[in-house]
C-alpha cells in the first residue's frame, strides 16, 4: 500500500514556487488536493510491469519534494503573520499620492571603505559632494558619510588635503566641508537609519534626511561590492534587500518623489536588483560579474586617486551649471565601455512614470528651488508694540472721521 498520499497540483506549481515569497500571493489560485493513490492506471499491463514500481517511486519522491516545498512556504507565510492576501511588499501597493512636483533636492553620499589604500573611494565621494554643492544643494540637505579619514591619514603626504587627480587641480577637502557621519559611524545600520529616518533621540538635524513627498534624492554609494551587497568598513555588508526595504519604507511614508541611486562598486548593478518601490532610477558602474576599475594613481600619494566611473562622471559634470537642462540619458551615453572598462547599467525597472530622456540631471544634482515674487504690500502691520495701547477697554469716543482707522480693501490682504 502507498504510505504517502500522492499529490496533485491543479495549476502550474512550478511558476508559483519558482518565484520568491513576494509573488507567492499569486499562488492563491493554486489548489492542492491530497488524493489517495487508487492504483488505477491506464498503461498497458506489459508496460506497467516494467515501469510501475519505478515510476511510482519517482512520483512519490517528486510529490514529496513538491509537497514539502509548498508546505514550508505556506507555513512560513502564515507564521510570519502575513496572511497571503496581505503579503506583498510595497510594489503591490497603490501609490498613496500622485507624483508631485520636485521642490527640493537631497543627496546622500556614502563612501563605504576604510583603510588608506581605499583613498580613491573617499575621493569619489568627496568629488560628488563638491559637485552637488557646486550645483546648489546646501549642506543642510547633503548627508555625507566617509568611512575613513584619508585626508588626515598618517600616510598622506599632502596632509589634510585630498585630490582626485594627479595634477591636483581641485583640493577636495577644502575649507568648507561638512562630514555628517565619519569613521566607524558609517555602517549599514547607519545608512538604513538615515534612509528610513529612524534616529536616536537628539540626532542633529543636519544628520537627518528630512525629505517629503516632493523631494528628489540622489543616493551615491562607492566602495567594494559583490553580487547583491556592498562591503562596509571591510567587514560589514549592506545587502540589496536591506536597501530595497529601506526604500519601500520611504515610499510607504511618501518621503520621496524620485530617487537617483548611483553605485560605483564591482558588480554594482546587483546592488539595485531588489528595488521594488516606484520611481527609483538606478545607475551602476558595472554589471553582474564585472569589476569596476580605478582610473589612475598619483605616484606621490602612492595610491589610486579616483575610479573610472566617477572620473568620467566628473568630466561630464564639469560642463554643467545649475541652469543646464542636460538629461540623464545624455549623461549615461558618455559612460562608454571604452572609458570605464565595464558596463554602465541604467536600471529603469521601477522608474516607469516618465522617460529617462526627460529627466534633467539638475533635478537630482542641483538645488533648484521654486520661488515666487510677491506683488502687493502689506501696509497695515504695525507690530506688537501697539497692543498695550489697544487692550484698554474702549471708551465711548465721539465718532469723528479723523479718528476712524483707515480700512483696507480686501484685495490688499491677498485674498483671491
Amino acid at each position: 500500500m502507498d504510505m504517502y498520499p500522492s499529490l496533485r497540483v491543479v495549476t502550474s506549481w512550478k511558476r508559483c514556487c519558482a518565484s520568491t515569497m513576494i509573488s507567492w500571493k499569486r499562488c492563491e489560485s493554486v489548489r492542492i488536493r491530497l488524493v489517495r493513490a487508487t492504483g488505477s492506471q491506464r498503461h498497458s499491463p506489459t508496460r506497467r510491469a516494467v515501469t510501475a514500481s519505478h515510476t511510482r517511486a519517482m512520483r512519490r519522491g517528486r510529490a514529496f519534494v513538491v509537497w514539502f516545498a509548498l508546505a514550508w512556504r505556506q507555513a512560513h507565510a502564515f507564521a510570519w503573520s502575513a496572511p497571503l492576501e496581505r503579503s506583498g511588499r510595497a510594489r503591490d501597493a497603490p501609490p498613496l499620492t500622485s507624483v508631485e512636483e520636485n521642490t527640493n533636492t537631497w543627496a546622500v553620499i556614502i563612501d563605504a571603505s576604510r583603510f588608506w589604500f581605499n583613498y580613491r573611494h573617499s575621493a569619489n565621494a568627496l568629488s560628488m559632494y563638491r559637485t552637488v554643492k557646486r550645483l546648489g544643494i546646501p549642506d543642510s540637505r547633503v548627508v555625507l558619510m566617509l568611512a575613513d579619514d584619508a585626508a588626515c591619514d598618517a600616510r598622506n603626504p599632502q596632509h589634510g588635503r585630498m585630490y582626485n587627480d594627479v595634477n591636483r587641480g581641485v583640493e577636495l577637502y577644502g575649507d568648507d566641508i561638512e562630514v555628517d557621519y565619519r569613521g566607524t559611524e558609517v555602517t549599514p545600520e547607519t545608512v538604513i537609519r538615515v534612509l528610513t529616518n529612524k534616529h536616536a533621540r537628539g540626532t542633529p538635524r543636519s544628520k537627518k534626511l528630512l525629505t517629503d513627498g516632493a523631494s528628489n534624492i540622489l543616493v551615491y554609494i562607492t566602495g567594494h561590492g559583490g553580487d547583491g551587497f556592498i562591503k562596509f568598513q571591510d567587514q560589514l555588508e549592506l545587502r540589496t534587500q536591506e536597501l530595497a526595504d529601506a526604500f519601500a519604507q520611504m515610499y510607504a511614508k511618501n518621503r520621496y518623489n524620485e530617487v537617483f541611486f548611483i553605485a560605483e562598486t564591482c558588480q554594482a548593478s546587483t546592488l539595485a536588483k531588489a528595488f521594488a518601490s516606484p520611481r527609483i532610477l538606478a545607475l551602476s558602474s558595472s554589471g553582474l560579474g564585472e569589476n569596476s576599475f580605478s582610473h589612475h594613481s598619483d605616484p606621490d600619494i602612492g595610491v589610486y586617486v579616483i575610479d573610472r566611473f566617477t572620473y568620467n562622471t566628473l568630466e561630464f559634470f564639469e560642463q554643467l551649471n545649475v541652469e543646464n537642462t542636460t538629461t540623464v540619458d545624455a549623461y549615461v551615453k558618455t559612460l562608454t565601455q571604452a572609458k570605464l572598462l565595464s558596463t554602465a547599467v541604467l536600471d529603469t525597472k521601477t522608474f516607469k512614470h516618465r522617460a529617462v530622456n526627460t529627466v534633467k540631471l539638475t533635478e537630482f544634482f542641483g538645488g533648484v528651488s521654486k520661488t515666487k515674487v510677491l506683488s502687493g504690500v502689506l501696509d497695515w502691520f504695525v507690530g506688537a508694540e501697539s497692543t498695550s495701547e489697544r487692550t484698554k477697554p474702549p471708551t465711548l469716543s465721539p465718532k469723528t472721521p479723523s479718528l476712524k482707522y483707515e480700512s483696507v480693501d480686501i484685495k490688499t490682504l491677498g485674498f483671491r
Partner: protein
Amino acid sequence: FEDVPHDTLALYGVVLAVCGRLVSEVKRLRSLGPDYVAAKDDAGASVPESSAEWLSPARELAKFTKDGARPRGKRLIVIGYTLVVLSTTLITAAYRVSVSKRARVNRNDYHEMQLRADASVRRRATVRVWVDHERHLDNIHAMQLAIAGVDVEVISPHRSSSGAFSSCAVVETPWSTALDKLVDDDIDVWIHERVKSCPSSSYDVVFISTDGEAVDGNIVLGQNRAAWMRYDGKSNPAFDASARALFAPLTLQAPHMPPFLSTSDGVLLVSFSLVNAAPVKGYALSWDFERDVEEHFLGALPGALRRVLDTQIEGQVLRHAQSRIRPRWSEAHNAFVVDAAQTPFFIDSDWPIDTSVAYTPVNGKPLHFAVYVPPQHECPLYILDEHEQMSNTNGFIVEGWGGIVIFNPPGCSAHNESERKLNREEISKFVTAFVQQLREHLGLTAMNLQKIKATILPPKESGFAAWEVDALVHARLVSDSHSAISTLSSLDKVISDMPDMAIPQEIADLISDSTQSFERAIALAQEMRYDEAAASALHAHAVAEAAFFHPFSLDGLQSYPIEYKVAALIPILLPMLIPLLLAFMREANHFALRTSCAERAKRRKKSLPTKAKI
C-alpha cells in the same frame, strides 16, 4: 526551481538531508529487531564466552540477562541530560539571534477611519445674529436654510424684556445706540468683550441701526469673530445678500496643506538672518534682534498663532555671504536688478544659514527669513517680478524654505560707525514683508474667501485675525487627522510586509495611543470644539510619526532575513544537536531492549529455580 534563491535552496537541502538521516536512523533502529529477536530466543541457552565479536547481539543479551537486573541507564541519563541542556541553551540562543520580537499590534480598519475623518472635514459653526427689528427675523430664518453647516441663533431684544441672552453672551439692549457712536476698532473690542466666554466656533453678526443717517450698508469684518453692518432701520434691499456675505469667513478652507503648517510636532521655527553680503568698515549692518524685532514687532504673533503652531523665533547676523547671482544694471530702474527667473539661484548653498544644526528643537524644517544687504558696488538692488516691475516688498519667497527681502541701506552709503544697528523704521519694512510672506507660507492667500464687498479690519498687532486662525485650526485638524491615518496605515503595511522586522512593545503602545487620540479628535470635532480637536489630532499625528520613525533598539539588526537564519542557525544546530539526538535515539532503543530482556530473564529465572527448590 531556477528562480529560487540559493540560500533558500540550501536550507531546503539541509532540512531534507536531516530528515533523510533521521528516517534512515529510525529504520536502522527498527531493523535491529530481528537479530535481537533471534538472539533473544536462545539468550539463556548458549553464551559463547570466547567470542571475538565485541558485544554481539547474542552476547550482549546474555550479559543483560545475567541476573535479570534492570539496567540503570547511566549512559541514557548522561546523553539525555546533555541533550536537554544543550538543546535548551542552543535553541534559546538561536531563537534570540534569529527571531524578531514582534509585539502584538492592534490592526485597525484604516479605510473606515479615513472615511470618518473625511466626514469631520466639513466645517460647522454657530452664528449669533443680533437683530433689533422684529421684521428681519424672517430673513434670518431664510438664511439659515440657505447656508449649510451654520446654526443660526438670534439675539433680539424682542425675545426677552430685560436684555438679550444667549447661551454664553450677555448683551445690553439696545446696542445700536451704544455702537453707533463708536469707531470700527472699538466696536470690535466691544463685541469681543460681550462674547468672550463663547466657544471659538461661534461668530457674531451684528446689525446696527442708525438714526436715519445715510449709511452705505457697508459690512465690516473685525479682527475677532464678529462682523457688523450699519443700516438705517428701514427696509434695505441688499440686506439679504449682504448678510449672507457676512458668513463668508466661515467657509474658509485651505485647499492644499502648506508644509510649514503640517509639521508633526506643531512647532514653527522662524529663523531670521541679516545677511551682509560684503561688509566693510562703515558698511555693515546689525540689529538688536530681541528688543527691536522679536519683542517690538513680533511680540503678538506667537500668541495669535498659538492655537495652530508653537512659533519659536530666532535671529542671527551673517557676514560675507554673497549671493550667487551677479545682478545686472538696469537703466530703466536706475538700479541693479535681479530678474524673477534668476531668483531660484539667488541663495548660495554655502551660506551658513542653519543656526542650530547641532540642536534639534523641532522635527521639521525651519522657516528661514533672510534680509539681504547687497554689497556696496551692487547697491541699490531690486527684485523684478515677471512683468519686469520692481516688487513692492523687494523680496520673494522660496517654497519650502522661507523668504528673502533685499534691504538697501539708505543712500547705499557708508556710515560713521563700523557697524550700524538698524533702527525700527528700517526694520518695520522687512518685518511687514515677513508677515506677508508668512501668510503666504501658511496658505492664507490661497484660501478661497468669496469676494465680498467688505471692509476688513486688519490684524495690525499680530498679523493674523482670529477668524483666519480659526480656518487654520480647522485645516490643521483635517490635515493632522489624515496624516495620522495615513502614517498609521503605512506603518501597518510596513509591519505586515516585513515579517522579519522587530516591533518593540513601545511601538504597539504608540499606535494605540495615536488611534485613541484620533477617535477623541473626531468626537470633539463633532461637538464643534475645533481647538481641542485640532490639539488631539496633532497629538495623534505626532505619536503616529513617532511610531513610524521609532529607532528600535539602538544596536543590532532590525530584521533577520532567511539567509541570515541559514547562516546563523545551521552551524549551531547541525554539528551539535543532530549527533546528540541520534545518539540519544540509539541509546533509548538500547535501553528499551535491555529492559525487556532483563524482564524476560527475570521471569524465566523466577519460573525455573523456584520450582526446583521446592
